[in-house]
């Protein structure tokens, strides 16, 4: 397992390997310190030794003291070193992505790139999950003024990216189903509704704490309809683009509507969870101020550039070979409270679709790995989640959002 956890304030990058190496170095420091103590005690008897023996003993004592200091320092600096690695890696990938971008849309540049030392085989071998392409997409997203692009596209003939009014209806007409509280990130991922046409896109869980206060968890599916022109499905590309641009996406409004209809009252805290576009929804709820959001959890979402309110635990899980998170641009500086968990998609959990590293099944596997991680920030985040639900049980309802035509919207009074 090679989870890489970034952010969370004091520590920038930490992996299970790193934690292991730190433990080993501390053990080395402790053992060598013990030996150093023995040699110091021996040196106290140097009147017994010849001059040469005393001299080499003193040298051993110095080397051991230095070794203790070095091991302790290295253990302390390991995180900083790993962070430096992260930044260096980004620089290298930025260079690679630049070449990849040039080679793709402008084939004539291929010969030039070959002259620059980039092989043609390297170009043709690139796929959408290649780190270079993922980095290229991130770079591209950084460069694109998305709100401006939305305005431009809307000016074109047709209804591309035109937002509509939405509504949300319960899929389960009977009384809420009772379920246990999520045990960790793995359960959160598994509870996200699958992105399937005509199926519920939202799962809402209501927790009643011993003091009578209500806490809510809302899970949002990923993109269902990939067309830019909105139909009836709010989990579409219009919501994707509008949501990433910081606009009022139909899917986000449907999620808030579902919460309200499920009984959520203003002021009651909500933990939003989502995969892909569902992460846009979750992050938008966190940033909208509509509810207190103590934590937000996203899987494979293009929300890297969005800053959630101070005090919100922001857990973002990204597969390094998943191009979708890159569409959110470069991650924010690591000084904020975001926990960015990165890992290549587990080989046996890759999907079979167009974006195998993006599928929810793979993220569910990574989430399960997060649940057994001893990273203190993940441990703390799991603790916060457990405290939030109070251990359950949850009243579960499933919801389906729909876009409304102008006529339907006028009749229902729903707004955009």
């Amino acid at each position, binding site marked *: 397992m090679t989870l890489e956890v970034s952010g969370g304030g004091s520590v920038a990058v930490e992996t299970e390997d790193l934690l292991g190496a730190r433990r080993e170095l501390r053990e080395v420091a402790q053992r060598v310190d013990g030996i150093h103590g023995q040699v110091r005690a021996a040196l106290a008897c140097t009147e017994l030794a010849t001059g040469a023996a005393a001299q080499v*003993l003193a040298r051993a004592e110095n080397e051991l003291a230095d070794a203790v200091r070095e091991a302790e320092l290295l253990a302390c600096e390991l995180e900083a070193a790993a962070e430096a690695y992260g930044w260096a890696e980004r620089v290298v990938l930025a260079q690679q992505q630049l070449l990849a971008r040039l080679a793709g849309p402008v084939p004539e540049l291929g010969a030039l790139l070959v002259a620059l030392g980039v092989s043609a085989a390297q170009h043709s071998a690139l796929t959408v999950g290649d780190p270079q392409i993922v980095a290229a997409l991130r770079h591209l997203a950084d460069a694109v003024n998305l709100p401006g692009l939305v305005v431009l596209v809307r000016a074109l003939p047709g209804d591309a990216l035109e937002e509509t009014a939405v509504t949300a209806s319960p899929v389960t007409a009977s009384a809420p189903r009772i379920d246990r509280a999520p045990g960790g990130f793995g359960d959160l991922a598994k509870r996200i509704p699958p992105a399937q046409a005509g199926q519920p896109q939202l799962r809402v869980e209501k927790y009643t704490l011993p003091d009578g206060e209500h806490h809510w968890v809302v899970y949002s599916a990923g993109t269902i309809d990939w067309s830019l022109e909105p139909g009836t499905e709010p989990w579409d590309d219009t919501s994707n683009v509008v949501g990433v641009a910081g606009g009022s996406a139909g899917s986000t409004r449907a999620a808030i509507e579902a919460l309200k209809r499920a009984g959520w009252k203003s002021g009651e805290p909500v933990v939003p969870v989502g995969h892909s576009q569902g992460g846009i929804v979750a992050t938008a709820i966190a940033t909208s101020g509509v509810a207190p959001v103590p934590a937000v959890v996203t899987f494979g979402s293009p929300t890297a550039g969005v800053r959630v309110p101070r005090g919100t635990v922001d857990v973002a899980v990204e597969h390094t070979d998943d191009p979708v998170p890159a569409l959110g641009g470069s991650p924010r500086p690591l000084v904020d409270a975001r926990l960015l968990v990165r890992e290549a998609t587990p080989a046996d959990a890759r999907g079979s679709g167009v974006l195998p590293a993006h599928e929810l099944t793979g993220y569910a596997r990574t989430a399960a790995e997060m649940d057994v991680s001893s990273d203190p920030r993940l441990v703390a985040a799991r603790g916060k989640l457990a405290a939030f639900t109070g251990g359950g049980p949850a009243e579960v309802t499933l919801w389906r959002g729909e876009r409304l035509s102008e006529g339907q919207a006028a009749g229902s009074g729903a707004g955009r």
Partner: protein
Amino acid sequence: MTVLSAEHERQRAALRARVRAAEAELLPVYRLLPDRGLWAGPAGWAFRLRIDGLRERIDAAWAALAAAEAEL
């Protein structure tokens, strides 16, 4: 005088045993050092250098202890 010299020799032998014990305890420490090839990339390179430096210090301490034992 003879008694003093014998006591001195006994203490030197005890000291030599302590130095030998320190040497023996130092050897397993090598196995505790983290894998120097743990990471790729620039920080991995820096990490390897640091681990190599630590190993060299332990080498030097061990050599000094061995030399001290020989001198005692």
